[in-house]
């Protein structure tokens, strides 16, 4: 009997081995043509994209294929006066890009090239009374931003600048019946948000707020017959969930609960 119904069927002729060289090649020349449609139209995500590309290259041992100087120049150009980072020049700064920028700086070991105090001030200014974080001055609250804030500050060694306990108790207020977390209090459990919440609790030393057995099981149930993982019950698998789910299980010491 099939364990899952909403699932994909991997075609017979699908690639069976990891083509690392091709991935390196793809990332190395991505952005070479500024008029490439996908590249140009996704400029509002560029800072995030550079992080994803750099992290992948680093994992593949090919970081030297990236243009370090060009990236450092880009980082400097994208830091705003308020300390936050824009996704690309002239777009507005936001916590999401600020985390990506700091992550990029750590990967390339160039934190000295950016205004770290500025980052600290920017992130700190976005924490609310109840401990949550706004994404920017316009006030959207979401645990994606809680994670951006604590991860960012942890990477630059300035976690004590924010109220860490309040941030953790905001996350706790987002706990759901299934052991998972959503974006705000009352929001449904979702693997991506679970990663941000479990990550936040791990960084702030409050992992004991999580029922690791209950959540670990819910995360293990994301695996479908195809081997792929979905983000919540009765949804199709997507490779991005391989990251959110596996990383969360690893933090919870239950990675062995999936195949």
């Amino acid at each position: 009997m099939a364990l899952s119904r909403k699932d994909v069927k991997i075609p017979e002729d699908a690639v069976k081995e990891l083509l690392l060289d091709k991935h390196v090649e793809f990332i190395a020349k991505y952005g070479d043509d500024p008029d490439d449609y996908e590249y140009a139209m996704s400029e509002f995500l560029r800072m995030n994209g550079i992080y994803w590309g750099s992290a992948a290259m680093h994992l593949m041992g090919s970081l030297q294929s990236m243009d370090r100087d060009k990236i450092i120049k880009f980082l400097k150009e994208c830091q705003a006066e308020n300390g936050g980072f824009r996704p690309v020049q002239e777009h507005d700064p936001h916590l999401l890009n600020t985390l990506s920028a700091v992550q990029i700086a750590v990967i390339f070991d160039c934190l000295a090239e950016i205004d770290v105090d500025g980052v600290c001030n920017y992130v700190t200014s976005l924490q609310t009374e109840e401990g949550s974080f706004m994404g920017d001055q316009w006030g959207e609250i979401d645990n994606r931003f809680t994670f951006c804030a604590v991860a960012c500050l942890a990477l630059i060694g300035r976690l004590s600048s924010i109220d860490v306990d309040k941030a953790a108790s905001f996350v706790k207020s987002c706990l759901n019946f299934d052991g998972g977390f959503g974006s705000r209090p009352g929001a449904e459990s979702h693997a991506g948000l679970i990663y941000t919440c479990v990550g936040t609790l791990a960084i702030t030393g409050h992992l004991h707020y999580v029922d690791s057995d209950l959540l670990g099981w819910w995360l293990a149930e994301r695996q479908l017959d195809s081997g792929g993982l979905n983000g919540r019950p009765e949804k199709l698998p997507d490779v991005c969930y391989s990251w959110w789910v596996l990383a969360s299980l690893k933090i919870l010491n239950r990675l062995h609960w999936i195949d």
Partner: protein
Amino acid sequence: MHGRVKVKTTEQQEREKKIERDGKLKAYRKAMSALLSRRAEGIKDDTQLMVSAQVLQSNPDISTLWNIRKEVLLHLVDLGSNSTEEADEKVFEKDAVLLKELDLTQQCLMTNPKSYGAWHHRTWSLEQMDNPDWNRELALCQRYLKLDERNFHCWDYRKWVAHRAAASPQSELDFTMEKIEENFSNYSAWHYRSKLLPLIFPGSVQDSIQEETIHSELDLVQNAAFTDPEDSSAWFYHTWLLGRQAEKSGIIYSLLENGTLTISCTEPIESAKLNVQVNESTENLSWEGEEERFNKLWTTKVSWKEGTKVKIFLSGSEDQYLQFSVDLDRQLLLGEKWKSTNQRFTNLPSQKTKPVLEQALDNCNQLLELEPDSKWTLFTKVLILLALDSHANHQEIITSLRNLTEIDKPRKNFFADLECRLRTEHCIETADSSTLDLSELNETRIQYHKQYLPAFKLVKLSSDK
């Protein structure tokens, strides 16, 4: 990109696509350039609104454009309220202006119903309005949830609207019922239910629900689960209803042996919460634990003379204290949380709940006769057996878990670890006062109930074999 199927195209199609895209890119860049340069000059006018609207309709995730709109709107609304100052400016009625934002976000949501930017801008616009029409917003939610009943952006938005509109939790509960009746596989609706029930039918403990409500919900969820046993949504909700109540914080035991004082707690606490009084005055001790801040197990070195009176309690629970007079032997004091043998991890159901659970067990067994490989039914049966009497049903539970490792192979380690946890509990419950024998347990990556081990004089582990 998510959910996009790879499609092979001919060279001709590729060329046509490139021409179309070049055109789109050119238009996009022209619009963005105009918007950003005019913004840099401080211009906040209708043109900015018009041009940004065009770009947003196909690109609703460019948050900077939503920001530009907000800046312009705040400026226009400000102008409107000071209309006497600018004689030749149009008078802007705040709500009329903001209503257009609702139209725009609605169009954008048709392009991408999951656009964070669009949903937030809609929220922001309504917050600025003097007289928002909440019924219109509830109707919008209805429509979007009909298109995609799992769109969590829409569910979150609906919750916010319901709160602003002061909709009763009961009316929201009725809405979840509608969605569940339409389709049992609606995890989002079950989830919302789990939030509303503690508000409408609160139990004695915070966030819990009344016993009768649990019974009626069990009835409802069994109906759903058995109608479609392969759908996980109802089964997850079922699991929650059967779950153990969270244990209240407390001391399990204290142990004084060879100058080391150990305090074991049910949940991780900060050492500042540990209170130790020696001959009636508070001792300041320096505690050690595995983790830096929060631990279930804390130890400290002491050098107390025989006959010293010691009193131990947690802050906030001064009435649940442990008290003893120091002698030279090993002194173990069992706390309020160390219940008598067989009861330590067992929570027997009330007289009213027991028959409900027995009926549920019966239903599961009936379904298992028809479909012995139904993983959800078998796992739920395990949970029911645990809820009824984890101690008495121990063997049947273990056997079922072993079956599950065969039926649900990807998760075999989960079932194996659960077996390990339950057998550890069983061992602790049946151990004599000094020896805990865990040697029959398989090695596991997770050590359960570590905080109990120091209480036993001798602990046999599987690695001792």
